[in-house]
């Protein structure tokens, strides 16, 4: 049984279609990369998967024990106010969101601590989030997402704006979560080169989806090879 099935999705805003005929399924432990040009609707698709945005038509179903509350999400370029006072610890803890009252439970604190250590940011725990570097901030947000899930991570362009070295570290971290912890990963990227290197499935969206399948098959298609060649030339 698949964790997530999308059937004939049409996405758009105020009746204006952005992408249509999106069909794919994600199984436990998959690493799916969603690629496509800027503005092709990748973030909109992620928002639809998170139920933040209703699709114009089509269905999204969860299965295999997955529910919306069990999804961890790393937003694209979180518009966090420049002067927001929040410590790393507070932000990671905010990923554990069940319960009322001003205090977190022991288990939630332990979970946050574990994820802080896993992301290698233990020494930053008391620091103010806005004073960290881009790469450190992404690790904090990834730790927060991990507090919300053991099952599925949705990452929207997690490496945008990071320098090459930090980008590699980020990709390695995500691969580790996928391989070691068995967390399903759905990652948006416009870096097709990285996508085919790390992911085992590719969804290429354009106005209509150009491709969905395994990475191996994607490389054999004309679009896949055309795009990867283009990406290669740029580097």
């Amino acid at each position, binding site marked *: 049984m698949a964790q997530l099935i999308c059937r004939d999705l049409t996405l758009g805003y105020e009746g204006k279609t952005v992408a249509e005929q999106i069909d794919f399924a994600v199984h436990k432990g998959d690493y799916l990369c969603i690629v496509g040009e800027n503005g092709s609707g990748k973030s909109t698709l992620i*928002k639809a998967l*998170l*139920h*933040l945005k209703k699709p114009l038509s089509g269905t999204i179903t969860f299965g295999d024990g997955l529910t*919306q*509350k069990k*999804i*961890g*999400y790393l*937003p694209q370029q*979180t518009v*966090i*106010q420049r*002067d*927001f*006072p*929040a*410590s790393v610890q*507070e*932000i990671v803890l*905010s*990923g554990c*969101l069940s*319960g*009322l*009252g*001003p205090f*977190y439970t022991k288990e939630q604190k332990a979970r946050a601590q574990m994820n802080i250590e896993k992301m290698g940011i233990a020494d930053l725990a*008391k620091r*103010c989030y*806005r*004073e960290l570097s881009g790469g450190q901030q992404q690790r904090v947000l990834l730790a*927060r997402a991990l507090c*919300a899930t053991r099952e599925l991570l*949705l990452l929207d362009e997690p490496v945008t704006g990071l320098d090459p070295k930090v980008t590699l570290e980020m990709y390695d971290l995500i691969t580790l979560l996928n391989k070691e912890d068995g967390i399903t990963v759905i990652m948006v990227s416009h870096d097709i080169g990285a996508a085919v290197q790390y992911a085992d499935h590719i969804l290429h969206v354009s106005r209509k989806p150009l491709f969905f399948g395994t990475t191996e098959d994607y490389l054999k298609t004309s679009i896949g090879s055309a795009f990867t060649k283009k990406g290669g030339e740029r580097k």
Partner: protein
Amino acid sequence: MSTFLHYFSYPFVQYALIVGVLIALCSSLLGVTLVLKRFSFIGDGLSHVAFGALAIATVLQLTNEMLLILPITMATAILLLRTGQKAHIKGDASLAMLSVGALALGYLLMNVFSESANISGDVCSTLFGSTSILTLGTEDVWLCGIMSVIVILLFLMFYRQIFSVTFDEDFAAATGVRTNLYNLLIAVITAIVIVVAMNLVGSLLISALVIFPALSAMRIFKNFKAVILCSAVISVLAAALGIILSIMGPPIGSTIVAVNIGIFFVFSLIGRIKK
């Protein structure tokens, strides 16, 4: 000094202090969220609407003005936060229109229909809260106290959700927090605080009470909890100090705001030095 202490034996001074401290506490708790959500201007607009509602209540000669002011302000708050979520410039202008309109119509209503001999005095005290707090009865104190306790309890109960919605609404919604519900809660609390605080500082000065403690605390502290605690302490101290100073003559509302401004400058300075 003894005459000064003597003042505290008057019940109206005690009432004023209790109410003032409670209001200050509520408005500072809320203030941090409003400032961080970039909603400070909504507090300002709402206080003008509350003034307009008060004018209507006066004209209708209602015995309990709250019964009209509170629902009108709440409805406006909900409406504003709804549209404010995508704070366009257009939304900004319509808010300004609403707030100035309410102010003007409120004054007009009071002038045309009021039977009071001293209209400008009445208007002045509702706008700047000069004397109203020293004329509070036990009933007002109870009402104020109950509303404050409700606000504080709501805030404590939903502290984590409020943090989450303030920090990153999309993430909160994605993990199943009902963000619309919490935005609604924030709107309702804002309305309550503003209506209650009108007694203390008058409707024109409320936003100062909401904004200053939060901004002062943010000069120095860099985590959410510390900022909340610090702004609560600042706000309570400033209110108490303002009320005590005002016994000697100056109007309460502006004195409290002046104390807050002073604290803001001191904290800004400390913040600079610490860097």
